[in-house]
């Protein structure tokens, strides 16, 4: 069943089409990878889904209903949560309060504070940051910051999570741990749409991979098919 899909999604910045009419879809319970060279328009697609940007044309639907042009807070409340490529944390606030903001405001129903605190703690425990609860977010290392980003998104109880390069800047051990974490997220029944440059992670986990190049969809298919795709190899390795 389709949970999130885009049809002819386009975003122009001045004369440049950052995303030039892309179709995509995420099915219930899927992990879909979004890859492509720098500047291909990957993060722009995430910004269009999350409402940070409005598409110039095209439709984005969540559970069959159009969410095109909605504001970020509305899209979050519907059940699409995201992380940011460069962690956008509330730096001076404690780790737990960072998550609390998400669990308090991120759901469609008003959440009592006590429940939201409990959910924030659960989310922190889930990503393994329980001991750092009382630290200011700015004191966390890169790997922990990325985990905090994920905890915040999870605290909204999303149906789909958009992960924007959560493995960038991590060392090999941390990458392995991050892969494990994403599998656990998927085990909770949350569909995952992930932008990733770490090929080992995408190719190992994704059910499907979408390759973006110059704002257009270059290829789409299983990781095995993508790895053999001539066009994709050319884009990544040069002709």
């Amino acid at each position, binding site marked *: 069943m389709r949970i999130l899909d885009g049809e002819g999604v386009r975003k122009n910045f001045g004369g440049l089409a950052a995303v030039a009419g892309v179709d995509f879809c995420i099915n219930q319970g899927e992990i879909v990878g979004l890859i492509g060279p720098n500047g291909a328009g990957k993060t722009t697609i995430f910004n269009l889904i999350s409402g940070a940007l409005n598409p110039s044309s095209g439709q984005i639907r969540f559970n069959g209903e159009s969410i095109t042009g909605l504001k970020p*807070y509305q899209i979050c409340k519907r059940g699409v949560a995201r992380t940011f490529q460069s962690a956008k944390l509330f730096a001076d606030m404690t780790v737990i309060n960072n998550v609390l903001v998400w669990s308090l*405001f991120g759901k469609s129903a008003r959440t009592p504070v*006590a429940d939201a605190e409990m959910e924030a703690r659960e989310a922190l425990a889930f990503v393994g940051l329980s001991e750092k609860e009382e630290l200011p977010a700015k004191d966390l290392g890169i790997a922990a910051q990325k985990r905090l980003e994920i905890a915040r998104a999870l605290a909204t109880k999303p149906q789909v999570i958009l992960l924007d390069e959560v493995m960038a800047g991590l060392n090999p051990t941390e990458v392995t741990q991050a892969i494990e974490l994403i599998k656990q997220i998927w085990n909770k029944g949350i569909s995952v749409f992930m932008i990733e440059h770490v090929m080992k992670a995408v190719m190992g986990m994704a059910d499907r991979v979408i390759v973006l190049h110059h704002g257009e969809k270059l290829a789409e298919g299983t990781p095995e098919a993508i790895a053999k795709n001539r066009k994709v190899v050319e884009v990544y390795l040069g002709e």
Partner: protein
Amino acid sequence: MHSFRVTSNKKALFLALLIVILIFAATMPLYIQPYIIISLTSIFMYIVLTVSWAIFSAPTRYISLASASFFGTGIYVWAILGSALPLPIVVGIGGLVSSLLALLTGLLTLRLRGLYFIIFTFGFSEFVRHSSQWWEINISGTEGRWVVGVDHTIIYYAMLILAFLTLITAYAIRRSRFGLALQSIGQFEEAAAHAGINVTAMKIMTFAISAFFMGAAGAIMATRWSYIDPSIAFSPLISFMPVLMAIFGGIGQLYGHILGAGVLTILAEVLLTEFPYYYMLLFGLILLAVILFLPHGLVGLMEKWWKGGLAGKHANT
């Protein structure tokens, strides 16, 4: 459990102290000379302005320089309605009209950020001053207005009650989910929006709440002057004072705002009476010194002492 890490005995102590001060302040006019009552009224006024300014600007980090327009609106509400209606009603109307004005400006300006927002609010305030000046000269036919005066003890009590209400509101907002949302907007607005917070609505609403108290304070203060004109009512000084007082006291804490308002009002009063010619110069120098040497304001200084003066020298806080 049910609060956002607002704990500790410090807060309880602060509350107890506040109650003692309130009782003391409420009985003050019985045994204190009028001059001090009038000075205390000024302190309360600046507490209202600083605390209400900080309700919006401290957590969100949107530095507003529009306070004068809200305060002045309250003054004009009194000038127009003061002779017709009882004081509490006029004060309430003064607050509401200022709130409405803030809603309108909020819709226009709160999409701006940082420096652009600061400059726009200042420009807006000046625009209000000049357009009311134009209105008075060309439409009303007089530049200034005579205002109905009120006994200074009544002004004192009215301002005390308003200060109390402002503090309670500020405290309640800080402790609520609303306060957490405002803080997250100040920390990283884009992330706050993605957390499910309607940041635009939240900012405009808070801006209007903050303007309510400024307008109400203006309506009360108008009763103290027998004559007003737009350059008195919308004096740019009123826009800058709350910012300076909050920074002077310590912008992160509610009691910092109170302390800053109190100390700076007294300081200004003393300088004005002792050195009438060098008042602004000395005032400016003191502010410069505080901003340079006490980045966390008086509160920062006090907390340093509180945490053991000698050890503080080696601590890397």
